[in-house]
């Protein structure tokens, strides 16, 4: 029973999910939209509780067992609680019951700590910092990829060299044919490879979906029995 119910749910909703692709009638489309927009949102809202529960349990255990770097777990938990309080009671832009804007004494400035301010001034810069690391990692990855160890790597190095050179305005001005060659590399061999991958991915995705809907693939349930 523990397996049959999830399998039955997957089968029913898998088939129902495929029908709107073929049936444009409003009754089917509206029902599909309702499921996607309302029902899924409710499920996601419940899952958030599970996620928060996991964070609290994980860090509580870390503190309780005094694992390595357990002190940082306090930072996570305290930040979580403070952010949740500000978000729940302070509103998104200081429009809640908790005051999140203060006039700094003897000045004309206000101090904000509403959730939008916290997000814009803490989360966004931290995310951007991580993202900017990509530039450095890309350089080191490119160095490794472009070492001409064998014939394939040499072709890769040559292609990358042409494409990069053609992107430089001065070079493309001096060697106008280089731009055409670069364009050819991108639109012919590169696109051909990508489309080949695309076919495989589309079919693989379809086959996996079918296996899951028919209950052949049960790895996501933890096993095959």
């Amino acid at each position, binding site marked *: 029973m523990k397996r049959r119910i999830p399998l039955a749910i997957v089968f029913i909703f898998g088939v129902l999910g495929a029908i709107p692709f*073929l049936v444009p009638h409003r009754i089917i489309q509206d029902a599909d939209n309702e499921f996607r927009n309302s029902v899924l949102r409710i499920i996601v809202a419940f899952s958030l509780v599970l996620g928060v529960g996991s964070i609290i349990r994980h860090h509580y255990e870390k503190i309780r067992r005094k694992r390595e770097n357990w002190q940082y777990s306090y930072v996570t938990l305290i930040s979580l609680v403070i952010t949740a309080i500000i978000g729940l009671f302070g509103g998104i832009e200081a429009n809640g019951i908790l005051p999140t804007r203060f006039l700094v004494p003897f000045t004309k400035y206000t101090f904000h700590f509403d959730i939008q301010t916290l997000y814009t001034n803490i989360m966004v810069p931290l995310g951007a910092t991580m*993202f900017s690391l990509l530039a450095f*990692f890309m350089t*080191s*990855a490119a160095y*490794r990829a472009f070492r001409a160890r064998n014939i394939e790597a040499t072709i890769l190095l040559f292609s990358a060299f042409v494409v990069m050179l053609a992107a430089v305005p001065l070079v493309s001005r001096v060697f106008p044919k280089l731009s055409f060659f670069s364009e050819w590399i991108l639109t012919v061999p590169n696109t051909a490879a990508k489309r080949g991958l695309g076919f495989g991915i589309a079919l693989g*995705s379809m086959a996996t979906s079918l296996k899951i809907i028919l209950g052949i693939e049960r790895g996501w349930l*933890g096993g*095959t029995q």
Partner: protein
Amino acid sequence: MITSVIVTFLIAIAPPSAVRTWDNPNDAGGVIRIAWQLSPDDSIIDGYEILRLTEGEKESKSIGFIGRSRNCYIDDEAEDKLRYQYQVAAVKDTIRSYSEPSNFAQSSAQWFNTERINVLVFAGIFIFLILWFITKAKKGANLFVRRIAGLSAVEEAVGRATEMGKPILYVPGLSSMDDVATIAGLNILAEVAKKTAQYETKLIVPNRDPIVYTVAREVVKEAYTQVGRPDAFNPDSVYFVTDSQFAFAAAVDGIMTRENPATNFFMGYFWAESLIMAETGAATGAIQIAGTDAVMQLPFFITACDYTLIGEELYAASAYLSREPLLLGALKGQDFGKAIIVGVLLFATLVALLLNLPVLNLF
């Protein structure tokens, strides 16, 4: 000014003709298409005004205006049960020259999208192939699957971690549960978890999506139970980190540098964070096996990881690792589906070549 007004009044513009209307096909209803022949004076007019008359009413009303040189309009404010008649007027300043009224048309919703019949036919063939090979596999046919280096290395990677006494890090992608790549990633997690349970190796599974976290936890728990080691399952080994993309990447990088895993698995869908995680893992000296169907991230994984499952290999992984006949049968069906596509492409290319090469002059 006076001259232009006089000229405008003197010019009699010709109306558009042959106004036709019909129900927009393959839709949810409420849409009527209107087409007409352009006015002979199309080059000098401002555009066309579309008027609609509901059956039973006396006066038509303007429903839209469209610029010159255009001969069709979509009325998406029709009601399914009503019949409408349309007129199109050529407009030049204040002058309007009306066409003959069109036929009556009524919008309706369709129960089948005929434009997608090709998809349905191919899906039918594909499903038949898969089911046929599954039946064959059930009867005990020997189905050959080529060696996939990345998957053959899973056993070695788990063994290495066990020998070194270090943990294994498994990231099931950053996408949600509705992504097939995530499900494929979780299928592989089940096989990896069985091996870690057998070897008593520590497994760490950080998650970005709360639903994926819940499923991943159950998958790992069930895998430990299946190999007879439910006691070895540590509920704290699978946990939710954050749903923020780069915060998650930072957390995974932190795990790699602190815990120093011997093996890193990246299986699922990834975005720009793929290289940040894979390069950090490479710097820590871990064996890295990645698998994704995100075409844009594949070059990064191929560069930074020891083994990469490219696109569909990710979906084949659970069949390859479990060697279960039913899954192998489905895999074989998938391969034949691909062979059909390749055949159709070759045939279409050949036909296009014969049509476009004048030297051949065959058609």
